């Protein structure tokens, strides 16, 4: 006896959409980069004009130890690798590895905040001492704000990962948080060279 199969209409395939949160994060990252581009432009222009007039750019007594700055940068460079590890682990269904990487990323981000606070305390730079101080605090402060946004983004995605929202086939949120994190670190690379190294 042969079984008779009734014709079944297959459900239509889901609409293939580009990764919504990645696109939005790309726009947000572009906007953030432009804000820093504007601030860097102002910083470099005013510094060049000040130096051309024979004056010193940083107020007297300012102390910016490069070792402290390098530690800041190293912390972020480590975090770049770790946050990408989180994405890669999720892509390979290594959930434990992803959780671990996200935790370390958050820890490194908080360590950066702590180190920056310490740097501010030892710089001996009064915000009221002139344009250079205002620009330095605004640029580094804006970067700190960007880092906090990235921390919240990664933290939210970590919670969603813990809640099982992400799989090896669906990890856009995590990838988007990593993208924003990378951009934040790239901004610090410019701060490192423009403000701290070539002061």
């Amino acid at each position, binding site marked *: 006896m042969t079984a008779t199969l009734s014709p079944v209409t297959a459900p239509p395939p889901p609409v293939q959409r580009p990764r919504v949160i990645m696109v*939005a994060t790309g726009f*947000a990252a572009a906007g953030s980069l*432009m804000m820093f581009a504007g601030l860097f432009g102002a910083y470099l222009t005013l510094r060049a004009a000040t130096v051309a007039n024979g004056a010193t750019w940083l107020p007297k007594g300012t102390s910016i130890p490069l070792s402290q700055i390098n530690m800041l940068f190293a912390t972020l460079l480590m975090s770049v690798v770790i946050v990408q590890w989180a994405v890669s682990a999720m892509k390979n269904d290594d959930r434990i590895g992803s959780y671990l990487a996200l935790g370390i990323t958050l820890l490194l981000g908080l360590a950066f905040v702590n180190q920056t606070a310490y740097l501010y305390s030892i710089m001996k730079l009064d915000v009221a001492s002139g344009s250079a101080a*205002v*620009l330095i605090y605004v640029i580094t402060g804006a970067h700190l704000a960007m880092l906090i946004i990235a921390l919240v983004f990664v933290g*939210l995605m970590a919670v969603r990962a813990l809640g099982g929202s992400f799989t090896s086939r669906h990890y856009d949120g995590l990838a988007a948080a990593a993208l924003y994190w990378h951009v934040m670190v790239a901004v610090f690379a410019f701060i490192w060279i423009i403000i701290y190294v070539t002061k």
Partner: protein
Amino acid sequence: MATTDTSIAPSVELHASDHATSGAPAPIVSLFGTGDHKIMGRLFMSFGMIFGMLSMALLAATAVSQNRTITFIKSDWVSQISTLSRVGLVFFFLIPFFLGLAIYIVPLQVGAATIAFPRAVAASFWTWLVSTGMAIVAWMANGGPAGGSAQMVDLSFFATGVAIVALLVTSMCVATTVITFRTAGMGLDRVPFFSWSMVVATGIWLLTLPVLVGHLVLIYVDHHYGVDGGSQFGKATTQWQIVSWAFAAPQVFAYAIPALGITADAVTTLGKARMPQRGIVLTALGAFGALSFGAWVQPALYPKVYNNWTFVVWSVALVLPVLLFIGGITGAMRKGKPSVAAPVIGGLASIIGLLLGAVGAALFAVRPLKLHEAANEYAPVVQGLQTGHWYQPAAQVGVFGIVVISAAIAGVAGLAYWGAKITGKPFSNGAASLAVPLLLLGAVLYGAPLVGIARVTDESLVNTLSLVSAAGAVFALLGLVVVSLGVVGSLAGKADVAKDPWNVGQTLEWDTTSPPERGNFATLPVVTSAEPLLDRDNGNPS
């Protein structure tokens, strides 16, 4: 639903009407909690229009105050009223209005059930509304650039910055909707002109306005923490100078980009024919957007920027995409025969205004004309010479007025074109038809005298031109009032409208009810061209 989520499925959208039957929160609670793109779009447009009328009234007051024979406003208030009018026209009126229109229309045009990140849009709207209110209060309480109250100056810059950030978040949502939510078959080359113009506009806003936010932070920090009102950024004499680039050409054209999209959609649809030079129009729109990128023209940081050849070439080149666009839509008008309806008239009037603005900006950039220099002690001053504050060249303010009012005309055209879709009631074409000439007259009368006033040496002529300019702002204000009354009148109407009240719709928004039901579309035609409804009506597979 998290703010970072976007549900495509219509069933999870929350609507005010749901609550009435489910015994859930009251309508007012639903209003504050809704993420419905249609409600958010209407809210943005409504409050934008209210703030627009307020800002336009202040613009008229500023223009009158330029006449030295009339003591209309206390001299130390002139700069604050002048700056509030310009900040208001851009960030409290024009951008929110266009974003509101886009929040409502763009998902319909691309065949989406909702906007991307509807909760983020809702959060942005309320943030924008509260911060706009705070900014206006701060300005009125002696804040704003060069204000007398230190706390209110701080608050005005802070609130304006927050309002701009909120608008940027909404811009991100609109751009993401067009990029990612298009229905099957709709490539970027097939998106309707308005949606395309919003991608270009939001892209330029996202690339330029963060620079302005950075400058506002600089001013705030320097003014708040600096000694004696700050160093280079926070001082009363330099505050407006630092942000003035955002209210001058070429940046001011960035706020008018959606005007081109509205015009192209209205002319094409009401011309009852496909746009023959679609590629040219899309290219012109993109080029116009690219050339309106003005974050690099910063006289506060680069005092010689107006003498820079790049600036001259850039400013003159801005005329070309406008001409290209006019050439493109002329083809559509020849092929079809657009009805003499308010959207077409308004769109064309807007483009004429933008062309005048572009020519004005080009004249300002041509150095031998010396429009950026003063031939008399009155002309270059549009604010606060009396208090020694930095001034903005009058020609720039004139171009600003022409461009902003011309963009507002396109806003009126958009309301006339999509008004029935938005309100579900027949829209008063009479009100729009009356508002358009008032606004165009306002744009020309306000801006044209200011463009050339710097070279006038006769004081009485300067005073007369100031009055003409003020009359222009009053005409523009009347235009906004008339169209607002038209909207209110339409809402009071009882007749419902069909899916496509024009009967010639080409794009997807005309394939859903007016206003659209939950989820926007019951079924969607497969898109095989830029005019899917024409394909279907012609019997082509769709």
